[in-house]
């Protein structure tokens, strides 16, 4: 204890006092700031019938977000004490996060789902299909061979506070996305050259080059018109003003709760459920227990396969199942020994048994997938099944023999997976793949793993021989399932190093053609080349599962994977 000797006691005491004060002050500062994030409008919660009071309190919604440091002492009223009648409320549980309420920066599926319920684009998908129908725009024209798109807006569209939505808002919102240049901005900036308002209700897009799937792009959140309250130059992550969707946000506590209420100014058919509460759960176990105990009415993304299986036996619950657009695949490094050998890649493709994977790893909650274009989407063909079959050990052996491998000279492979990002079935998937490949007797697989960021870093640097990845589409079009993987100018993120000028050409041409049948021919050809070159092996396609109470109606799911809260209702 000699250290204190040289210092005068009073200084030291002063120091401690300061430390303690700082610690206490820090605690309370953090406390009140933490509270401030809850953008709560108590008055809205108390309103059972939606009448004029909502318009008055909406002012409060927009003002509270500017005064985020105000401790919300007013939260004494709670959902239970002000619960409206059962018919008007539905509670949905998820394990996902809402990352960023600003469509200029949000780039994950769950946030997009929420945005699609509180905002609307010029066009949208007809529920249950992948067909695009008018939304804020009642019609549109294509000019200049697909280079100029003109949208004519409805005249009765209003934001959730009654402000009319005009062409200027559309232009402002899209220019804002381009200016902020957030994560999903490429969906706009790579295609749109200029957007302008021809008059109050006409918007003109001039594209960089013709884009056949432009409507699919316009249906994505970066194209959604947002309320003028959004900061024009910066990402506005906790902004709750929303757009002109069927619902509006009335309460938002990050990672805990999001409360939506009907937007009284919505131009379309009003939702049947007055209030939708979304609860954020930490993991699949808590979500499962919540639906079992009746804490929530609907358990949405993502339950574990084993939980879905056992919840099917629960008489109080219904399990809804539809094909999803989520695909899983493995990327083979075409620049690295020994997977740079096409025969090796083909042998791997032949040895894999997708049915076994679907059963043992995912307990039947997924479907085997034999192409990168998902099942049910136009131009899909089962190319891998046609060429290799499933679990075709004999063919794999032949191909390997041709490549010079046998029992004495085994093919040594490294298979990488990432343990948390794709859920806890990932280690099982890697193990089953190893087992299947080793069943040839000629392959030896070493499994390696890295956490997500490291995994991405290694992948981008082309350091992984075989890696497991998954894909959610950005827009619903075969282009989004092929170009990012196979086009040599777009697939650097895969680390496969695959490049085939013929594929590039086919994809470029397909992107600018406007006729779907004509495009389909190009995509079919690309898929055939994919099965021949095997830079990527599709494995499975996810199904969407929703577990809900028996009397919840209006659950319509489709490959866009956006769950529409505004279609829900209570049976009986």
């Amino acid at each position, binding site marked *: 204890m000699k250290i204190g000797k040289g210092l005068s006691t009073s200084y030291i005491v002063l120091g401690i006092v300061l430390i303690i004060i700082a610690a206490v002050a820090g605690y309370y500062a953090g406390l009140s700031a933490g509270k401030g994030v809850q953008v709560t409008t108590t008055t809205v919660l108390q309103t059972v019938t939606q009448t004029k009071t909502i318009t008055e309190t909406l002012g409060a919604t927009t003002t509270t977000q500017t005064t985020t440091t105000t401790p919300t002492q007013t939260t004494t009223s709670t959902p239970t004490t002000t619960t409206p009648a059962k018919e008007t409320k539905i509670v949905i549980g998820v394990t996902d996060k809402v990352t960023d309420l600003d469509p200029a920066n949000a780039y994950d599926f769950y946030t997009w789902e929420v945005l699609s319920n509180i905002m609307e684009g010029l066009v949208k998908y007809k529920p249950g299909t992948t067909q695009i129908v008018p939304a804020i725009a009642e019609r549109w024209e294509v000019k200049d061979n697909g280079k100029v798109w003109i949208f004519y807006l409805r005249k009765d569209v209003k934001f959730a506070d009654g402000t009319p939505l005009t062409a200027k808002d559309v232009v402002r919102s899209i220019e804002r996305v381009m200016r902020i240049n957030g994560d999903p901005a490429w969906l706009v900036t790579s295609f749109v050259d200029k957007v302008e308002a021809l008059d109050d209700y006409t918007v003109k897009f001039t594209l960089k080059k013709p884009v056949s799937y432009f409507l699919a792009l316009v249906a994505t959140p970066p194209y959604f018109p947002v309320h003028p309250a959004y900061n024009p130059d910066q990402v506005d992550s906790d902004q709750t003003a929303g757009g002109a969707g069927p619902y509006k946000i009335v309460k938002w506590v990050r990672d805990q709760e999001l409360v939506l209420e009907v937007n009284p100014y919505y131009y379309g058919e009003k939702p049947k459920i007055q209030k939708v509460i979304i609860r954020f759960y930490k993991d699949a176990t808590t979500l499962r227990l919540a639906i079992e105990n009746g804490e929530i009415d609907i358990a949405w993304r993502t339950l574990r396969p084993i939980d879905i299986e056992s919840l099917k036996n629960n008489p109080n619950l219904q399990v809804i199942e539809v094909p999803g657009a989520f695909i899983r695949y493995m990327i083979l490094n075409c620049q690295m020994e020994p997977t740079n050998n096409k025969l090796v890649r083909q042998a791997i493709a032949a040895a894999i048994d997708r049915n076994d994977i679907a059963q*043992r790893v995912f307990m039947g909650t997924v479907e085997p997938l034999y192409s990168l274009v998902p099942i049910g989407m136009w131009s899909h063909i089962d190319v891998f099944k046609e060429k290799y079959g499933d679990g075709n050990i004999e063919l794999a052996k032949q191909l390997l023999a041709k490549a010079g491998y046998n029992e004495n000279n085994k093919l040594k492979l490294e298979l990488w997976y990432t343990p948390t990002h794709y859920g806890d079935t990932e280690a099982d998937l890697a*193990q089953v793949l190893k087992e299947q490949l080793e069943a040839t007797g000629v392959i030896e697989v070493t499994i390696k*793993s890295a956490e997500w960021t490291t995994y991405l870093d290694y992948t981008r640097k082309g350091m992984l021989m075989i890696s497991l990845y998954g894909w959610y589409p950005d827009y619903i079009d075969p282009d989004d399932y092929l170009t990012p993987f196979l086009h040599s100018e777009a697939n650097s993120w895969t680390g496969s190093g695959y490049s085939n000028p013929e594929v590039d050409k086919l994809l470029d041409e397909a992107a600018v053609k406007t006729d779907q049948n004509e495009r389909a021919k190009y995509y079919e050809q690309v898929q055939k080349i994919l099965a021949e070159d095997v830079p990527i092996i599709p494995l499975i396609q996810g199904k969407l599962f929703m577990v809900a109470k028996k009397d919840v109606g209006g659950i319509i799911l489709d490959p866009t994977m956006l769950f529409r809260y505004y279609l829900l209702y209570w049976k009986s």
Partner: protein
Amino acid sequence: MVIGMRIIDYLLRLRTGLGYPGKGFIIAGLGILIPLLLMTLLAPLISPYDPTKGSRDILQPPSPAHFFGTNNLGQDLFSRILWGGRVVLTVVLVSTILSAAIGVPLGLLSGYLGGKIDRALAMIMDSIYAFPGLILAIALASVLGPSIINAAAAIAVVYIPTYFRMTRGPTLQLKASQYVEAAIATGAPTKRIIFRHILPNLAPTLTVVFTLNTADSILTEAGLSFLGFVVTPPTPDWGFDLKAGQPFLPAGYWWLITFPGIFIILLSLGFGLLGEGLNELLSPKEKTI
């Protein structure tokens, strides 16, 4: 970490002359450890299945065909437990030896030489020691990536301060003792003093510390493995298997989690009992009041 408390306790008892009766602990400890060690050593001979190969018999409850049942991939859990012991023991022994090999010499030198270096080292060691060990190991292991050697290194870092403290303190005392001062006065070289006069005096304490430390690092290894920082599948490891069984808990598949945990505890308990017994055996000054 708990080891620190036991050491305090140990020293306390040295000072106050408290103690417990019982070679029973050593016998009990060995009674657990010897079968466990045999089991893991003989795993290739007695394991009924390949621990890494799955089958179509998934999620089978314990039966004569599969003593501990099978997991969701159809792997035999009994075989996985047998083989998993090898991984656990390797990691734990490598890490304990590593931390002793670094901590003890540092503690000796630091305590013997004293001065600024000693104070600086002591401060660094104390700050690591004061911090929750598992959290530190997690941070290190996540940098290094999952592998047996990396995990051993991460665990070793956590325990270096324990050895350092356990060596430095007594060294300081011994150095101040007349016995060593006399040796210094006769002009004996430092090396000789350390190896002939100080180290032998530390040996009993260090043996006990080593054993108890092993018991503790088994739990740390299991914790790291549980969080996915030790092995990649299909390598069997108890902590990892426990984690793999967790998703199946709400659906009631109890055997997936029960057995790996029991073995972690048995192994740790075995070393714990042994350490307790050794503690008494090697501390002749103790008397029971």
